[in-house]
């Protein structure tokens, strides 16, 4: 019966329900369960932390006081920090470069369509998890213990964290490569490495470059604090200034860090917009 034909008999009246609920009783129970759980977790966290609420009464006064001591910045301090700033940039850049070199093979290991067997895939995935779970600064602690204080520890820390970051995104890109294109190159009788180099590498190149630049940008930010654990860069000076209550010095360092982070973000955004 099509729409423009009229029914020749009225349809019998059916019993339509007179109640409607968005969520069934069971769904609502689950929602209350989640809400209750979250509320409980929140209460437990806040209470256990033993917060002195009295502190916050004069928080705004404290803040104003702090800002007063920071301003005006002691610009004469600026030349002192140029060298450590450059060292910070070196740590970020060299660390990222080393990371890329290692991240590429790890990515091939961690991608289901290029890994040798289940074991190597698990190995690749484990490297990813280990690298990504430990923060750059903590890696810094580890490498300072191993290599002693200095920029070498910082570079290793940056590299250790970045390998997992880059390799994870590149592995995802490898898995998304069109299987047909890989098959076609295999069908010409090429060796496995040739297949990777010709059918896979050109396709993942934009992701590889974009991710590397993105991570470099993050690493500039991270390198600025590695000095706190002795891994080189401007962090050490910043820590010292704050500990000595030399606020007008600290603000100069902070402004300098602000500067290099903004510049590195701009470079990163520019390069990533240009590659396709």
């Amino acid at each position: 019966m099509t729409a423009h034909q009229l029914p020749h008999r009225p349809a019998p009246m059916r019993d339509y329900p007179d109640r409607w609920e968005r969520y069934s009783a069971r769904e609502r129970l689950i929602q209350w369960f989640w809400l209750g759980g979250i509320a409980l977790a929140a209460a437990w966290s806040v209470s256990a932390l033993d917060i002195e609420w009295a502190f916050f009464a004069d928080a705004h006064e404290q803040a104003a006081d702090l800002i007063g001591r920071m301003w005006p910045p002691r610009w004469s301090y600026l030349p002192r920090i140029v060298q450590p700033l450059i060292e910070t940039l070196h740590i970020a850049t060299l660390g990222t470069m080393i990371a890329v070199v290692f991240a590429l093979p790890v990515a091939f290991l961690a991608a289901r369509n290029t890994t040798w067997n289940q074991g190597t895939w698990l190995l690749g995935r484990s490297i990813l998890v280990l690298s990504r779970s430990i923060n750059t600064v903590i890696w810094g602690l580890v490498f300072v213990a191993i290599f002693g204080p200095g920029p070498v520890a910082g570079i290793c820390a940056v590299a250790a964290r970045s390998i997992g970051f880059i390799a994870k995104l590149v592995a995802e890109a490898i898995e998304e490569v069109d299987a047909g294109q890989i098959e076609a190159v295999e069908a010409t009788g090429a060796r496995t490495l040739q297949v990777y180099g010709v059918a896979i590498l050109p396709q993942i190149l934009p992701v590889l470059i974009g991710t590397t630049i993105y991570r470099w940008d993050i690493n500039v930010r991270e390198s600025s604090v590695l000095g706190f654990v002795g891994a080189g860069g401007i962090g050490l000076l910043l820590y010292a200034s704050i500990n000595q209550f030399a606020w007008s010095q600290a603000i100069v360092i902070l402004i300098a860090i602000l500067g290099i982070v903004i510049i590195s973000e701009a470079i990163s955004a520019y390069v990533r917009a240009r590659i396709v």
Partner: protein
Amino acid sequence: MTMSASAYPSAWRPPTIFGSPGRRFAFWALFAAYLVWSLSTLNVDTARIMAGLPRAWNILVRMMPPDFGRWQLLLTGMVESVQIAIAATIVGAALSIPLGIAAAANLSPRPVYFAARGFIVVGRTFHEVIIAIFFVKLFGFGPVAGLLTLAFSSAIFLGKMLAEDIENMKPGPVEAIRATGASFGQTFVYAVVPQVLVKTLGVLIYRLDSNLRHSTVIGIVGAGGIGQTLSASFSRYDFDFASAILLTIAAMVALGEWFSDWARRRLR
């Protein structure tokens, strides 16, 4: 369209990603120059590193096997980190609401908008550890400083997300609900909240996971949590305990990320 065989060129260079061979050469030349410059100006005392390698190996050996003997200390530290992360996410979420609204171009007046956006830009630049140092200086050692640090950075992050969501909101559904004669509150609940809710929940879960990661680090400067335990163990040369802590951190972060992925997938 036939040419004799010899008329075909026998040499060909593939196009490079740099647009021209000249640019490619320039890039690699710069690259090499940078390597030389950086490695020479860096204070790398290779002799000392070479001398230190056997010591490095020694330390690595001492890290194995990880010592979970003092697991109560470990547990206390981890629990504190988790508490900081949860509490900071909630406080940060609360603070992010006014900040996000202030930073939304379609809702707030120009000067307020610029001030809020400026505040977000500056706040995002600084690593949590830097913020932590300030709060430790102001409020002393302990988890309070950690809570404030992560709440602050969460508020900035969540505020930025909220501002973007508000700016990207579709005016259509809001108009439609207003047209039915609904009050402001009802419009808010029926038109605005559904649009941003799922995404906001997803972002909150993501931020909780982030805070979990960061809470492990800020302890290094004294802001509470497992980071403090870790830092102490390194300075006491307790390497096997340190490796136990590291493994626990790795496991917890991995768990948190897995949970975050699962929850966000479930939300869809």
